């Protein structure tokens, strides 16, 4: 009963309600987390169909995070090993970060640890963060054709720094041809990016 209420509160993005209900929860929190991940996936599907909107997903992700924090506090931070660590940024010169935020929210909901560096981020900052945090994936977004070149610069800088992860690109200006040219993996949209992130890390 409480479990259903918690999942419903997450679905509705009610952070405080989720927090209060978790105080009453006596079951296996790991099992609850697995069900909450399903809820987030379900919301992702509905978002893709245009039935719900970005803020609905963002609020649900916040409520979901309350559950993750609870689990970490109960079982220690090591209890919840992320599926992988992802560094995301919109490239320098581009301030459009809506798509990147959707990807960040979806990845976090799937269990990835996401470091979102924001918009208009220089290549050096992205590389420094990726190396320092031993990121498995680096993803950059470019909406404008004129900022595409920055994605190439990030890839080159990552290679120079000796980083050995998977480089993802996305955004309205990108194409599969561009991804092939610079040696990147392209996410067509947030759902596709999550699917490919799991695939390259061998997660089923």
């Amino acid at each position: 009963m409480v479990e259903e209420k918690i999942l419903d509160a997450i679905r509705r993005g009610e952070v405080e309600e989720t927090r209060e209900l978790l105080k009453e929860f006596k079951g296996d929190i790991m099992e609850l987390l697995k069900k909450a991940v399903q809820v987030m996936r379900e919301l992702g599907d509905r978002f893709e169909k245009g039935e719900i909107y970005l803020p609905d997903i963002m609020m649900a992700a916040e409520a979901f995070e309350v559950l993750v924090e609870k689990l970490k506090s109960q079982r220690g931070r090591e209890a919840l090993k992320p599926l992988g660590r992802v560094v995301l940024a919109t490239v320098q010169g581009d301030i459009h970060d809506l798509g990147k935020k959707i990807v960040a929210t979806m990845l976090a909901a799937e269990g990835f640890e996401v470091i979102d560096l924001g918009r208009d981020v220089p290549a050096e900052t992205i590389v420094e963060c990726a190396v320092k945090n031993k990121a498995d994936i680096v993803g950059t977004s470019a909406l404008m054709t004129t900022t595409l070149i920055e994605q190439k610069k990030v890839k080159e800088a990552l290679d120079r720094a000796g980083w050995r992860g998977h480089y993802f690109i996305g955004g309205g200006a990108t194409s599969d041809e561009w991804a092939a040219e610079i040696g990147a993996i392209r996410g067509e949209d947030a759902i596709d990016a999550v699917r490919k992130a799991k695939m390259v890390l061998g997660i089923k």
Partner: protein
Amino acid sequence: MEFLDIWNKAVNGPEKSEKSFDMTIYKKALELKRKYDIVFDKSYGFRIDKSMARDLYNAGLELFLELGCYCVSTKRIIKLSEEEVKNELKIVKKTIKIGKGRDEVEIGGERKVAIIGGPCACPVSEEIFLDVMFSYANDIKVDGVMPGKLTRVKGLEISSRTPIEMLSVREEASLTRAAIEKANRPGMPILGITSVSSEASNFSHGSDGLRDTDLHEIDPINELKVDMETLKRILFCKRNNLPTASVMCPIVGGFAGGPEETAIVSVAEALQGFTIIGAHVFILGVNDINTGSGTDSKSLWVSGSVLLALKEMLSLPVGTLIWAAAGPCTEMVLYEIVTKSIIDSACGSNVIVGTGCTRGRLIDCYTGMEAKIMAEAVQSAQRLRFDDVIEVSRILLNNYEKKLLKREIPQPKSFKECYFDGKPSKEYIELWEAFKKKVLEIGLEMES
């Protein structure tokens, strides 16, 4: 509003994290949607409710007064009092003249709807940039032009925050000026030109670039945000006493939420434009998060409803920018442009800007024909009553919206495939003429 007043608010206003501001927008818009009973109802087909205009405006005003505008650089909120907003709105002129001499255009009031044609900052190759811009400037039905974005300049890659970016923006301006001179319309106004860097945007201004009589574009950030670059651009335009347009492209399904919430936020963004940005014209380029275009029912409803609300409550110069999913020489793009143009002009848009075909994704897929289509569609809508425009739009939507939502977008033709010796191809003209015959049957009469 004095620039230093805005600056003072940007550095001393209430602090907030960006994430928290984003979430507050949606929650507040949702609350106001319920309070004012703002409803997007598709159950009886596409429609726009004129009687909702006042409530929508009041919801947008309430949202703007409560939330203000977020400065992402200082992480503070620029908040205006109700009195400040009212005072600022009082001093905005009801009409604005742009351009020079016989090419001068007046925007606002009961004047004819102005047509500003161009690729709207979508990518265009350097070797055909002048020809593309000429295709717009050379059409007599087009009143002004909005340049595309160069993909390279002098053969060089354009990298942000470099002198080459500045050079590219100036080159866009000077090539556009060369195009309007070639078309023998030297005073024709140019709308533009922005870049993320204010240095580059401001560098578009000069003897061979944009002049004091052109319409200088300032782009705030989605939704209800500015940054240091926007503030620098505002200062540049204010200090030089330049005519300005605040161009805002809200995303249905984005930070604001669904269509109703996006409409409320869009009204707030118009108020932000006329007050904080200090714009003479507010231009709205609604697009949908899934389709990327502004021609689906939700986006059309948002745009039309907001224009109606602004017309009824403010009567200040407002415009609309067209984002289409399809590209040149396809029947789908004709449907998209005509539907959007007739709805927005009937809802009070003083200027129509476009068309950003292919959602701005493809290089060189923008031609003057799209602007001619906008102009002829607007003319035809002016012969119809408001309710008839909506009825016609409903039929037009039935012809393309399903494909749009399923992302079944036809392959467009490029400029080089559509224009020869400065004139549209026979194929494109015949497609348009056949389309006009087809829509005549549903009551949309366009000049041949």
